């Protein structure tokens, strides 16, 4: 029963998201360098952190799937990756908007986190064609899990590599907001992470519940049509 606990979770999400928005626009101070544009930071970075954690969670569910053979873990892995791709799209778009507003270009190669994220995003986009080109359901689940594990391990290595590459040629530009944040900004940022995490988990459960309903319906149809 994937929808168990979904209602309190949704309510919590609404409350935290509302609090977060209020904090961003009414509480957090204005940034000295970037002015009002810096507010994008509070949506872009929490989204990125949650998306990356979602990818890694997909890998962890995949490990549990392979070790136990329980296919429900594979579904959880798939939906986590699916949600992370959706959140990832938001990360890239908000990142581009921020780059345009702050530095005049829609894309900057100087920012290692954004570049790493693009590579990770491109990799995980291949999850769908891989998964849906395998017809046998058992094999589909197993191969998807193998991919999720390899890709999950890839995420930290990729971030380390890109960071190493960029720090030689370009100074790190976005880190000034991360380094010495005043308390109010830090609080808003943390609430933002909580808000995005709750949003992720709520949508994840929602999607799982819907998938499960479809699967049960298929089961029911098979039984009814078999004996008809």
């Amino acid at each position, binding site marked *: 029963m994937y929808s168990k606990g979904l209602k309190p979770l949704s309510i919590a999400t609404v409350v935290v998201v509302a609090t977060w928005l209020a904090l961003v626009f009414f509480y957090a101070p204005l940034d000295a360098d970037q002015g009002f*544009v810096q507010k994008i930071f509070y949506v872009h970075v929490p989204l990125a952190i949650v998306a990356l954690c979602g990818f890694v969670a997909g890998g962890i569910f995949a490990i549990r799937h392979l070790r136990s053979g329980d296919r429900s873990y594979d579904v959880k892995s798939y939906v986590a990756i699916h949600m992370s791709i959706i959140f990832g799209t938001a990360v890239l778009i908000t990142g581009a*908007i921020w780059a345009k507003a702050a530095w005049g270009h829609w894309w900057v190669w100087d920012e290692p986190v954004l570049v790493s994220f693009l590579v990770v995003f491109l990799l995980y986009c291949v999850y769908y064609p891989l998964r849906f080109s395998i017809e046998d359901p058992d094999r589909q689940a197993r191969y998807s899990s193998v991919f999720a594990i390899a890709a999950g391990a890839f995420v930290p290595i990729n971030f380390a590599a890109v960071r190493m590459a960029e720090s030689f040629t370009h100074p790190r530009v976005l880190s000034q907001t991360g380094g010495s944040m005043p308390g109010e900004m830090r609080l808003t940022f943390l609430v933002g992470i909580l808000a995005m995490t709750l949003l992720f988990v709520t949508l994840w459960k929602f999607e799982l519940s819907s998938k499960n309903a479809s699967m049960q319906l298929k089961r029911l149809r098979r039984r009814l049509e078999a004996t008809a």
Partner: protein
Amino acid sequence: MPALPLDEAGKYVAGAYVVLFTLVVVYIAIMAAKISRIERELTDLADLADKREPDEREPEIERDGEPVA
């Protein structure tokens, strides 16, 4: 680059938050489509189950064409 004036900056910030909101709403729309499909399926299956009930009462007579001894 110097900080943008508030009216210009506002458009970009609004754009970023609107992106998030739009994605969530698009997701809701997709889920709405899924739910209506589930509802249709469920109704179909309920009809299927209903239709079967009356048939099951007389299988012997129908199938063999001979009176049951």
